[in-house]
C-alpha cells in the first residue's frame, strides 16, 4: 500500500475526502446534534411548544411508569436476545469456520435471510405464532395440546423473532474470530486429553471473545433500536422504545419528548457497546494471558 506523503499529497487526499465529509457533517452529524439539543431546549406544554433549557423531557421519561417500563423492557429484550443468540450462534460459527462444503452451506443459510426484508421475516413469525398459525396447528394436531395460548403480541413473540432476525449478526463475527484460532491450538488441547466439551469451553470460547463482543453489541443494538419487529410481533401490548418514539412524534406530535427518547436510545446503545467491548478486552486479557 503506497501512501503518498507530503503537502501536495495531503491536499489531494483531503480534497478526495471533502465531499463525503461535508455531506455527512451536514446530513448526519448536525441533524443528530440538533435532535439532542432540541430535547434539552424545547418541551411540549399544554399551551404548545415552549423553549428554554430544561430537563423536563428526561424527567418525564424516567418519572412516568409507562415510559420507564418501556425503557426497561427494551434493555431486557436487547440483553435477552443477545445472550440467547449465543447458544444458536456457536455451533453455526464453528461449522462455518471449519469451512468446506458444509461450511459454505451454513454460511448461505445464515446470510440469505438477511436479504429478505425484515418486514417479511417479522410477518412470517406472526403467521407462525398467531392463533391459527403454524405453531398452534402443530401443537393441536401433532402434540394434541388442547387450547394453546396465543403467543403473538407478547414479549416472547418479539424476543423469538428478534433472535431469529438478528442471529446472523452474531454468527458472522463469531465465525471470523473462531476462524482466526490456529488449528494447532486445538490439536494441542486434544493431545493434552481434552474432550470435545472441554476444548470448546477452555479453548474455543475464550479465544473467540473478541468476536463474541462484536456479536453481542450488534444484536443488542439492533434489537433495542428496532421498530418493525416489535411492532408486528408485539403490537401495542409490548412496546419497545422504537414504537414509543414513533407514537410520540407521529401520533401525539410531541417532538421534544420523542427527541429525548431518541437521545436516550443513542446513549443506551453507545453505553452497552462500550460495556461489551471493554468487558471483552478485560476477560480476553485475563483468560489468554497476553497470547
Amino acid at each position, binding site marked *: 500500500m503506497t501512501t503518498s506523503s507530503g503537502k501536495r499529497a495531503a491536499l489531494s487526499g483531503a480534497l478526495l475526502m471533502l465531499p463525503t465529509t461535508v455531506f455527512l457533517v451536514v446530513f448526519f452529524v448536525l441533524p443528530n446534534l440538533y435532535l439532542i439539543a432540541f430535547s434539552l431546549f424545547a418541551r411540549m406544554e399544554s399551551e404548545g411548544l415552549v423553549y428554554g433549557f430544561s430537563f423536563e423531557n428526561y424527567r418525564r421519561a424516567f418519572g412516568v411508569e409507562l415510559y420507564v417500563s418501556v425503557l426497561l423492557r427494551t434493555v431486557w429484550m436487547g440483553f435477552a436476545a443477545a445472550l440467547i443468540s449465543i447458544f444458536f450462534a456457536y455451533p453455526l460459527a464453528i461449522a462455518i469456520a471449519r469451512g468446506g462444503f458444509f461450511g459454505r452451506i451454513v454460511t448461505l443459510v445464515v446470510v440469505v435471510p438477511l436479504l429478505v426484508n425484515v418486514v417479511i421475516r417479522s410477518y412470517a413469525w406472526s403467521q407462525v405464532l398467531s392463533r391459527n398459525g403454524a405453531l398452534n396447528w402443530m401443537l393441536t394436531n401433532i402434540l394434541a395440546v388442547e387450547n394453546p395460548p396465543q403467543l403473538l403480541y407478547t414479549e416472547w413473540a418479539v424476543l423469538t423473532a428478534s433472535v431469529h432476525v438478528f442471529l446472523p449478526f452474531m454468527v458472522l463475527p463469531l465465525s471470523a474470530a473462531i476462524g482466526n484460532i490456529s488449528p494447532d491450538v486445538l490439536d494441542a488441547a486434544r493431545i493434552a486429553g481434552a474432550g470435545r466439551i472441554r476444548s470448546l469451553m477452555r479453548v474455543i470460547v475464550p479465544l473467540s471473545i473478541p468476536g463474541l463482543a462484536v456479536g453481542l453489541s450488534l444484536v443488542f443494538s439492533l434489537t433495542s433500536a428496532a421498530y418493525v419487529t416489535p411492532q408486528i410481533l408485539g403490537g401495542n401490548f409490548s412496546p419497545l422504545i422504537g414504537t414509543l*418514539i414513533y407514537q410520540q412524534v407521529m401520533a401525539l406530535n410531541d417532538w421534544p419528548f420523542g427527541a429525548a427518547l431518541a437521545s436516550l436510545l443513542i446513549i443506551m446503545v453507545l453505553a452497552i457497546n462500550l460495556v461489551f467491548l471493554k468487558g471483552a478486552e478485560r476477560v480476553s486479557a485475563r483468560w489468554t494471558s497476553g497470547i
Partner: protein
Amino acid sequence: MSKITYAIVILILLAIVAPLMVPVLMSFSDTPFVTFPPQGFTLRWYHKVLTHPEVQASLWVSVRLAAVSAVAALVLGVPCALGLVRYKVPGRGLVLGLVLSPLIVPLLVTGLSLLQFFSQIGSRWTFIHLAIGHTVICIPYVVRNVSNSLILANPDIEAAARVMGASRWTTFRRVTLSQIRPGIAAGAIFAFIISFDDFPISMWLADARQFPLPLFLEVAILRFFDPSIAALSTLMIIFALLIITIMEAALGIRLRRFTG
C-alpha cells in the same frame, strides 16, 4: 466435527428456514383468509399482487430510490476511500470515524433527526429527502468495501505506471480502477440492497406519493386479510435467493464481509 455437532447445526439451520417457509406455503391457499395449513391450491394471489397498482408503484419508488442512493454513495464514497487509504492526511482517523458512524447510531434516530432537519429548513422534496437519508447509511458500506479492495490492490503496478509517465488521473482510470472493481461492485450491491430493504429511515421521510416497498408491506399486512401478502413475501424471498445466486456467480464475493 462429530455427528452430534452436525445434527445440532442442521437442526438450527432448519429452525432458521422453517419460519420463512410458512408464508410460502400459505401463499398457495385457495381461501380468502390466511390459514395454516393451506387449503387448496391457486396462483391467484400471485396474480393479484403482481398486477396491483399500489404494489407496482411502491416497487418502482424503491427501485429508483435504491439506484439513486447507490450511485450517490459511490460518487461520494469511492474518492473518500481513495483519500483515506492512499494519502497521509492529518486527521484521517477522524474522517474514518465519521464515515463509519452512521453504522453506530441507530437508524431509527438518524431518520427522525433528518425528518426534523428537513422540516425545519422547510424542504418539501420527499424523494430527495429519502435519497439523502439512504445515501448517508450506504456510504459506510461503500467506503469499507472499496478500502478493502484498495488495500489489497498492488501498488507496484501503480508506481510503474507513474514512472512510465502516466498522469495521476490516467493511472487511476486504467490501473487502480480495474483493480478495485470488485470492491466497487460489492459496495454498490450492498448499497442497493440496504436502500431497497430500508425501513427505519424511510418510515420517517416517506409520504403518500413516495412510499417505498417495505413501508407498503407493513401497511399491507394490516389491510390485506387474504394470502396476497404471503404471495408477495414468497416473491421477495425468491428475489433474495436470486440476488445471492447472481452475487456468488458473478462476483464470488465473500459473504462474510457483509456484516464484517
